[in-house]
């Protein structure tokens, strides 16, 4: 399998503060990759840098094309969907309107409505609530909505920013099960950023560990999960 996303020498800044210090990361097409690390290590910044939401230098290539200096909306057009931290629900709109917004860059109206039905099949709870204001959904339901909305883009690569945040363990298991299914059946390549290392390592094939803006460890997810030294020193479980 070929490399889909290649990040090299990535340095990102919030004003004067540097958050990433020469980060290197690559994602194979068709795989699930996870980026693990503690609070403030630079996980969210990495995702935001890919979508050009933060000032960065270095190189980010998606299928050989450079993403540096492109606007966020044109990066989305390449088929890169971003599920933002905290779900990013459009709270005053209905569930269905949220899903339609996920497809706002698409013009194939018929396929959009059939994709909405497909999302309802993945997440039956969203169908039950499709006319309800999205802000009234529970945390887990909003996270499912965020994933479904990102899929409405028909992405080739999906970037998930801490999907497990604030969710009950059982709901997280469900969600990760669906992510695996999306990865296998819809051939969506996935990068999932997580603090919940245990679960992310079960889902992913490849893992990267980030600390203070640098990758300190990378490799096969199972090997990293089985290596007690790494687990204790970096992942804290």
């Amino acid at each position, binding site marked *: 399998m070929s490399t889909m996303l290649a990040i090299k020498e990535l340095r990102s800044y919030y004003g004067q503060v540097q958050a990433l210090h020469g980060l290197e990361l690559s994602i194979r097409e068709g795989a699930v990759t996870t980026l693990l690390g503690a609070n403030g290590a630079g996980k969210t910044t990495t995702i935001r840098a890919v*979508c050009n*939401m933060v000032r960065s230098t270095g190189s980010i290539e998606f299928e050989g094309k450079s993403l540096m200096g492109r*606007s*966020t*909306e044109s990066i*989305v*057009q390449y088929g890169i*969907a*971003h*599920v*933002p931290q905290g*779900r*990013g*629900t*459009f*709270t*005053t*709109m209905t569930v269905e*309107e949220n899903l*339609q*917004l*996920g497809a*706002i*860059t698409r013009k194939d109206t*018929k*396929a959009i*409505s*059939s*994709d*909405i*039905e*497909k999302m309802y099949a993945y997440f039956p709870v969203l*169908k039950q609530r*499709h*006319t309800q204001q999205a802000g009234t959904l529970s945390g887990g339901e909003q996270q499912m909505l*965020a994933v479904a*909305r*990102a*899929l409405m*883009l*028909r992405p080739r690569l999906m970037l998930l920013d801490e999907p497990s945040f604030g969710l009950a363990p059982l709901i997280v298991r469900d969600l990760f099960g669906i992510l695996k299914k999306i990865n296998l059946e*819809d051939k*969506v390549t996935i990068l999932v950023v997580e603090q919940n290392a245990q679960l992310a390592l079960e889902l992913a094939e490849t893992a990267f560990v980030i600390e203070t803006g640098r990758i300190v460890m990378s490799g096969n997810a199972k090997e990293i999960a089985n290596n007690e030294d790494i687990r204790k020193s970096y992942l804290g479980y």
Partner: protein
Amino acid sequence: MTTAHETAPAATASKKAAAAAAPSMNIARVASLITLALLLLVPLFLKNFYIFQMTQWLIYAIALLALNILTGGSGQFSLGQSAFYAVGAYTAAVMMEILGVNYALTLPVAGLICFVFGFLFGLPALRLSGVYLALATFALAVAMPQVLKLHFFESWTGGVQGLVIIKPDPPEFLKTIGLKVSQDMWLYYFTLVVGIGIYIASVNLLASRSGRAMMAIRDNQIAASAMGIDVPLYKTLAFGISAGITGVAGALGAIAVAFVAPDSYTIQLAIALFLGMVIGGVGWLPGSLAGAAFIVFVPNIAESISKGLSGAIFGIILIVIIFLVPHGARQVAYMAQHLIGKIGKSS
């Protein structure tokens, strides 16, 4: 992902939703038809002065609609609407009195000029949000009357004196078919037609792809850009559209009052519009009529209660309304709808 053609369940689902929403839809439809009928018929039985006040009311409603699109639609605040209103008013005045253009033609020009002005102002405003944006627009509102007084523009604007406009007469064909229509009545119906046109266009705008993009930005800017929405474009577009509609309202205002002067368009007007939006219910377009009624008629009511303390009485009325129905006319409409629904069920 693969495309399975499963549109049938979608269709039935939306039908069900429509059936469930039908009673409330009917109430809303009946209410809007009654409102429309009243707007059409009431002026026929009124004296010219009251017709003039109703025209003022409609004009403010249009200006409020514009603010609702900006704040309710895209989540941006503005205390500078009076500046756009002033530009629209002066555009109409200068075109009619100095260039001799027909009054009806001044509206699209005023709209266009204000759209460009609003769009350009929206560009620097992109870096600001919330209360900071409100402050920047406040500065615009404060500066506008002074700019209009500048000696440099005096040959066009009439400086401090302003410009007197000749009120347009009703078209000749009304006389030939035997209808006697006063200037005020003609202007009322002219404003009503323009207002209905703008209302329909605004409803369609908010329901369109662009409208959804604006509302997504209002709800969550980061998520909106992650969906591929061009956030700067839609934010400035919202500013431009809002300013454009406000400009049309300003032009209508100038024609109706038959006079423009810098001090008619001070920050007080901008604050009145902001107030009207809150009273009508932020983001609820029909509320514009209620909000405009408040800013046109309540000061008169306050004055009829006490000449010396009219300001204080206005304040008390305002506080009572905000306290009882913080979401304004929108809340009253929902409560009424709920009540009628209940009565309908029990009978």
